[in-house]
């Protein structure tokens, strides 16, 4: 039945397009800008931090040396007792964390179990300054999609060299075959009187740690 439908829909499309000449079209003119900000590293980091903060993400700065301490502090502030991490989290990130139960991502870490876990800690694939977006693609240091979805608190570490200016800069760097989650601030809704409120189903607190050599 559905094979038949496939042929019929395609035939209907071809009939509907009877007026369209079958000539090749010239390449699409993309007159829009490749970026809306200057693309030096300090500007990119500042714009990303500003946009993340505007959408109520908590932005923290750290040098690579300070990173473990900042992660430890964020977990203490959130009163985290249990933490989910990807199996390939860079060594050293957890060196200043104490008294927290660690759970490593894997098939045994089901949604039910994650539902009882306080926080998740991951890296990311890249971040987009202009839109205040962090992209996760289940690549190195990120784990499965579920890891950053079910716990109510997500700490995401962004290296300065992972920040790009804009979507036209980001898309060529992303692999479409990987499952992607683009995150711009914590979960939110505008469904009540079209007014934005933070916090529905995804993590209600998003801590971003920007890691660079010269933090402010």
């Amino acid at each position, binding site marked *: *039945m*559905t*094979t038949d*439908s*496939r042929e019929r*829909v*395609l035939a*209907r*499309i*071809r009939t*509907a*397009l009877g*007026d*369209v000449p079958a000539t090749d*079209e010239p390449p*699409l003119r*993309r*007159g*829009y*800008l490749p970026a*809306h900000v200057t693309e030096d590293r300090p500007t990119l980091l500042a714009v990303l931090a500003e946009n993340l903060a505007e*959408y109520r993400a908590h932005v923290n700065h750290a040098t690579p040396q300070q990173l473990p301490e900042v992660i430890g502090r964020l977990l203490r502030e959130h009163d985290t007792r249990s933490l989910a991490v990807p199996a390939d989290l860079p060594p050293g990130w957890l060196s200043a964390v104490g008294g927290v139960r660690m759970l490593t991502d894997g*098939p045994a870490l089901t*949604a039910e179990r994650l539902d009882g876990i306080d926080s998740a800690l991951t890296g990311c694939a890249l971040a*987009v300054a*202009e*839109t*205040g977006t962090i992209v996760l693609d289940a690549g190195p240091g990120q784990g*499965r*999609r*579920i890891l950053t*979805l079910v716990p109510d608190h997500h700490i995401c570490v962004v290296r300065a060299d992972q920040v790009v200016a*804009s*979507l*036209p800069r*980001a*898309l060529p760097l992303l692999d*479409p075959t*990987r*499952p*992607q*989650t*683009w*995150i*711009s601030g914590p*979960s939110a*809704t*505008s*469904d*009540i*009187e*079209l*007014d*934005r*409120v*933070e916090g*529905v*189903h*995804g*993590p209600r607190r998003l801590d971003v740690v920007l890691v660079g050599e010269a933090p402010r």
Partner: protein
Amino acid sequence: MSGTYLGMPAFPKAAAVSTQNAQLRANLTHATHTIRDKRAKAVAELADWAELRQAGKEIKDRTLRRLDHYLLQAEAAVTAAGGTVHWAQAAAEANRIVADLVKAKGEREVVKVKSMATQEIGLNEALAAEGITAYETDLAELIVQLGDDLPSHILVPAIHRNRGEIRDIFREAMSRWGRPAPEGLTDSPAELAEAARLHLREKFLRAKVAVSGANFLVAETGSLVVVESEGNGRMCLTLPETLISVVGIEKVVPTWRDLEVFLQLLPRSSTAERMNPYTSIWTGTTRGDGPSDFHLVLLDNGRTDTLADEVGRQALRCIRCSACLNVCPVYERAGGHAYGSPYPGPIGAILTPQLRGLTSEVDASLPYASTLCGACYEVCPVAIDIPEVLVHLREQVAEHGTGHRAERAAIKAATWLLDHPAAYRTALRAAARTRRLQPRRLPLPGPAKAWSDTRDLPTMPEQSFRDWWKTRGQENTP
């Protein structure tokens, strides 16, 4: 289960009722004005908005001109990535495909991501008839479902409800669907969102099948894109074992790169954000991460009819941002329900009659649900000339003779007068001379009565413009 649009009255009849609802009008005015100012600001941030809009329009037009090619490309890519592609000519066939897939899994319930396509085909009702419960998980869709209501806005289906009404619905209905509303729930939006979080969490955790739509389907990679805010979409797209996505055939875009255009246009036009909180992109299935079984249902349901109309096909460019609703003076006053379809507002007035045909009273009335002010065209991120399509559809309604005979007669008379200048002049003078005798209202008979009853006639000037123009040089006025 939520209501149905079947047997809805024509737009003027429905609007006559809804415009009397002061609460509805206050809710709509508040919400649409909030968002339209924010949208204008978000758009003004981008110096190249006009170029993005042009590219969005052009990409969609090119896709439509080779729609068969891009659909086949998408089908091949989705299949290669481990998905199964189904084709549905109409609503009933799509509903049957989804119901059969759910039953084959031995399941009696599904969780749903907000989707216009599944609203359009009445999927929830069709599943209910097969003993399958569909849980809406978007906050606004949940409000609509719990309130046994109909959606009235593309982005915010419960826009007609204010916070107090939402609290009452949650208190009254949540217990019937699952976890009850928390004790002492107030009308603070944060508390209402928390109540929805608690209510739906158990459903997310136990669901085996999810149903979604998609904002975009990338032909070259087979990737599907869902933009959302709350995380309910991520839950549905990640936790269940089986994912079924019902996607209109016009949602396809040719290349991965094209997303850089639409993911700039859509959030700013829709929620007035630089980017919506969550965007999920998946390509087929990924071992060990997310659903292991993925089905894509490609839906025609009137889209090929729309495609056949050279003027009307531009409606298929629509990316469902709802910016046109938020600026429309008619929508603001009449509300979404008056449009008798899940697609209300200006886009609904051109999309619904094309998808469903002009045969019913409500669909034939929709092209008239507009003042042709053009605000919708101005804000449309893919430059759909809605007024142009409205006028085009009015012509069709007039030709087919379904209603509005009076308009046809009036236009015929006006055409004759305008073709005969001498007669026109005489008529104007006669009208001016008899002005004292003219009634304030003109009670027309038949269907035109509704129009004439609510309008005063304009007062006739002493002199016609033509006569004034001719004599103005001889007088000594500045």
